């Protein structure tokens, strides 16, 4: 009788497709990765105790934002869409106009940002943020 020979196969993990799998994963990450860049409106805050800014009355454009998002420029109602042009006209006459923005305490934060956005787009460089009395 012939004894049967036992086979000793070498156990191996098949690695042939590793490169393909890694390529697929790489394509997935390349396609889905978004390098997020934050955006913001930069403010320079005054140091506590610093003297208040004094400006001539005719150099100041007083902008108020109401609780209901309504806008007033020097006491006259103005629409958000036409604010940029109104300020541009003002800056054309007096380029160093100081724009003060006063927001009602209960107005939504979005109203402030929308207004600041339009002020910045108008080209105004001197902007002061005030809080309405009682805030």
């Amino acid at each position, binding site marked *: 009788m012939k004894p049967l020979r036992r086979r000793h196969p070498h156990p191996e993990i098949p690695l042939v497709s*590793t*490169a393909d799998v*890694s*390529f697929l*994963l*790489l394509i997935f*990450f*390349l396609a*889905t*990765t978004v390098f997020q*860049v*934050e*955006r*913001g*409106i*930069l*403010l*320079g*805050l*005054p*140091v*506590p105790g610093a003297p208040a800014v004094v400006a001539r009355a005719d150099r100041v454009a007083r902008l108020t*934002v109401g609780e209901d998002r309504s806008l007033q420029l020097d006491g006259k109602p103005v629409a958000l869409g036409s604010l940029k042009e109104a300020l541009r006209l003002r800056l054309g006459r007096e380029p160093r106009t100081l724009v003060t923005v006063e*927001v*009602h*305490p*209960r*107005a*939504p*934060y*979005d*109203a*402030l*940002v*929308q207004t*600041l*956005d339009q002020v*910045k*787009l108008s080209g105004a460089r001197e902007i002061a*943020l005030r*809080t309405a009395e009682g*805030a």
Partner: protein
Amino acid sequence: MNIRRRAHHHNVIPTASMADIAMLLLIFFMSTTIIRADDSDHVRLPGAVSGEKLLDETAVRVALGSSGTVTLNDAPVAMDDVGAVLGDKLAKNPALLISLHADASAPYERVAYLIEQLKAARAPRVALAVRKRDAR
């Protein structure tokens, strides 16, 4: 006269190391990707056209949710303590940029209170974080 034989070079791009490069890139992307849900702190940023890119990696993120919750780099903090905590950070790095992520619907008085705290903490650089909005 001997005629020289022209050598025929086979122009082949070596691709043997492609798998290694792919693996390295894969490891890079896997280790740097942060899967982050935007609504984790329930902050819906207001849109703006004039927002500038904030490229400061060390910026401290102060978030104000619609419900009034305040987080500092995703860690909850009481609104009254924001100034004190930031004061410590600013003492170590006076040029620190503070990025204020306030919800669009948050009442302005809360934002103003936070800004007052930032002012008291002597924060020199503050940014009102916005999401990019296209000009109409």
